[in-house]
């Protein structure tokens, strides 16, 4: 991915091949970013809308990107995370709930979409994650599903690497506890 990111950046820096670079970026990150958004907002339509907003924002911000290939992934995830949080905050505002409490409400929306079952381990797992405090939930998802490094998670969330590790550790413990009940 690092080599691909370097190639993407090289194309983006070339004004004649910028769209080609953007196409590669879209190809590489559409699915990962969608699933990251989906894990945060749960509802497919919300994730779909958020994803389009993310690409618009990324394209508009390409000139502002100052990092190297290694930081590109974190940069994209940061934009996606902020888009998801904005959506959740808007929902919180008119429902007078916090993002932490909203997570529990979102957990109620999780069902197994391939079948009628609402008791599958996948459903229970997602509900457990959604019941975590917002920060732990975010760090857990980025580490567990997206396998971002703690340095990348720190860039995405704005919290220190050591805090990221702590959050992930406690998130794992809490999820294990909920899944064992």
């Amino acid at each position: 991915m690092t080599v691909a990111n370097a190639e993407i950046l090289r194309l983006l820096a070339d004004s004649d091949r910028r769209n080609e670079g953007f196409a590669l970026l879209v190809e590489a990150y559409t699915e990962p970013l969608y699933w990251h958004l989906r894990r945060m907002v749960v509802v497919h339509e919300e994730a779909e809308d958020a994803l389009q907003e993310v690409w618009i924002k990324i394209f508009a911000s390409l000139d502002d990107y100052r990092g190297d290939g290694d930081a590109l992934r974190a940069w994209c995830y940061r934009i996606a995370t902020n888009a998801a949080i904005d959506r959740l905050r808007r929902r919180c505002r008119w429902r007078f709930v916090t993002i932490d409490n909203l997570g529990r409400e979102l957990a109620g929306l999780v069902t197994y979409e391939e079948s009628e079952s609402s008791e599958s381990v996948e459903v229970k797992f997602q509900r457990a994650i959604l019941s975590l405090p917002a920060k732990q939930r975010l760090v857990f998802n980025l580490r567990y599903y997206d396998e971002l490094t703690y340095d990348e998670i720190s860039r995405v969330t704005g919290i220190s690497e050591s805090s990221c590790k702590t959050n992930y550790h406690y998130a794992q413990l809490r999820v294990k506890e909920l899944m064992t009940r």
Partner: protein
Amino acid sequence: MKEFDFENVGKRMPYSVPEGFFEGAKRRAGEIAASSQSGVHCRFSPIFSRVAIAAAVVLALCGAAWWTVDYNSLERRHERLLADISTDLLMELVSEYDPTADESEYY
């Protein structure tokens, strides 16, 4: 009780997407770049939006002026209607109205 093992679920999730969704999403994202490349549209869009705003203001002013004129003509129409009613009919209508009466009588 047996401790939960993350291997039991791995990265599986209970979510699905409609068939062809990702292809469509990538295509829509690609359109963002393509639409920015149509330089004519981008170069003139600030001018276009200003013209549109100006046109909307002019239309609003015209609409307000028309409504004022129309309201005045409405008043003149009421005056004409009153002038067309015969004096006898008008007196009959006025005499039937008793301002001191209890309104519940009328309902």
